[in-house]
């Protein structure tokens, strides 16, 4: 690694090197790191955004953890992980497993289409799906067409269905990404490995578990980190589709942070929830990295 350096320090540290990283770090420290530290401090206070901050210690945290609406919003986030992360990854793996040696003509076009949901604003995505789920939208018209009028309803207005149906939007956004990622990964696996498995008499299923899956470890970690963090953050989509409702049936922590800070003027409480969300994401990402760490 260090042989790749142009300049090595002669006798003492060359401080002018720091000038190169200075501009980037100024932006990063002022607009990311300082706000994080400030949020951390605010989380120990009671503050309405205008008057003096009042130090309350851990009170905001204990209050948040005792608040049923907040704990259930965290539960909702975990349900969304199933839709944003688990389903697309399973689907992507299944399809990648099927495509081991198939060369598909027109793959570039398929790839471009499957990747499309990744590039769009979640507000646009949310509006498209709001229409699909609307009382007189395509989904219900389709159900009516097949004589299933009893099933059709205002999906996003339903206490029982709104959360899984918002989750399905996440599945729609993510499944193309995991497919492309895993298919690209599968194509990098040396074909000798599959030949060797064939010689050993491995069937398609054992081939998948013994060759494909272990060699996709890197891609799986990437997909997990990417989709899990998005499922836990997820503000834009919830804001435009349900706003957390009906009631609090699709409420998630980031939506609570917004409501508490900007509608209820509970800045201290919102900050402590923000720190809790940060902690949750860091813990899950670390867990993913630890579980899938190379054991060599």
């Amino acid at each position, binding site marked *: 690694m260090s042989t790749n350096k142009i300049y090595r320090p002669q006798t003492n540290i060359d401080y002018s090197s720091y000038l190169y990283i200075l501009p980037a770090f100024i932006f*990063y420290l002022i607009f990311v790191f300082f706000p994080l530290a400030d949020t951390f401090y605010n989380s120990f206070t009671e503050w309405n955004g205008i008057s003096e901050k009042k130090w309350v210690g851990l009170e905001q945290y204990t209050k948040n953890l005792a608040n049923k609406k907040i704990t259930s919003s965290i539960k909702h986030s975990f349900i969304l992980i199933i839709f944003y992360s688990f389903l697309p990854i399973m689907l992507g793996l299944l399809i990648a497993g099927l495509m081991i040696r198939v060369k598909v003509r027109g793959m570039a076009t398929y790839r471009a289409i499957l990747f499309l949901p990744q590039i769009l604003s979640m507000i646009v995505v949310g509006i498209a799906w709001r229409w699909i789920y609307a009382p007189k939208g395509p989904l219900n018209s389709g159900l009516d067409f097949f004589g299933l009028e009893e099933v059709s309803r205002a999906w996003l207005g339903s206490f029982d269905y709104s959360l899984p149906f918002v989750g399905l939007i996440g599945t729609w956004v993510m499944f193309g990404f995991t497919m492309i990622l895993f298919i690209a990964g599968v194509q990098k696996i040396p074909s000798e490995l599959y030949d060797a498995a064939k010689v050993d008499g491995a069937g398609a299923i054992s081939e998948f578990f013994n060759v494909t899956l272990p060699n996709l470890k890197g891609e799986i970690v990437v997909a997990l980190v990417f989709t899990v963090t998005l499922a836990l953050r997820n503000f834009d989509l919830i804001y435009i589709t349900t706003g957390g409702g009906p009631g609090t049936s699709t409420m998630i922590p980031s939506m609570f942070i917004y409501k508490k800070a900007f509608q209820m003027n509970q800045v201290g409480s919102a900050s402590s929830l923000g720190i809790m969300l940060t902690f949750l994401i860091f813990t899950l990402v670390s867990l993913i990295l630890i579980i899938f760490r190379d054991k060599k």
Partner: protein
Amino acid sequence: MNYKNREKIIAHSIFLLGSIIVLYPFFSILFLALSEPGKRISGFTVPSGIYFDNFIKAWTDGGFSNGLFNSFVVVIGVVSITIFCSTLAAYAFEKLDIFGITPLFALLLIGLVLPYESIVISLYYTMKAYNLTNTYWALILPQIGLSIPFSIFWLRASFKSIPISLSEAAMIEGAGRLTILTKILIPQMIPAILTLTVLLFMWTWNEFLLALIMIQDADMRTAPLALSYFAGNKRYGDPAITAAAAIWVALPVLIMYIFLQRRFISGMVTGAVKE
């Protein structure tokens, strides 16, 4: 031979089905937006004709000329400053020996995972204290800070792939560090910088939460923010006009995607793997 053919048919069917699932929502709102104004389509029928009235109405009523302009200003500010700062920093990280590089890198790693939903409150009060809410600065400056960690990681990886011999030769001829960067390394980096530009453009264009909390003036709204007000406003409860508005907002990124799709995909797929 037969076996191979069967596999190919299965593969095509899977991709075709996947493509239809992805495209259905797009065509669904496109048909809706192109439908005859005031006439309800059920979403399961193909429209009888093409009408652009909804697009015109959305454009004039939603203030999208302002919204698109504001978004472009923010994108240009964020992309240019981020690329400038990150190139310098990535160069120093990869090619210069810096004391204390590991903790500095770890510090950046925090920014890569941090959910910025949790820090926007603090950003808002800071901006308010300096009277910067409702200005472009409130959108540009934090977005640069948030974009810098990924950009440095991305550019550092491509600096790494440039062989050291290139810069050594220049060094022997007495070229300084800045000259080596601008004359020798950056020309090699153009593809990587272009891909990063595309990704930053997309992320900045689609950014919503910062705009939602920093901007209260209707004139200062970015395109996605204008869209959310438009879609949420009961007065414009017509879903066909909302659909047209959504297409206006998606259009710049879509056009860019049509021409540069390989950069989008390779940027996000390999960028993610490199991390």
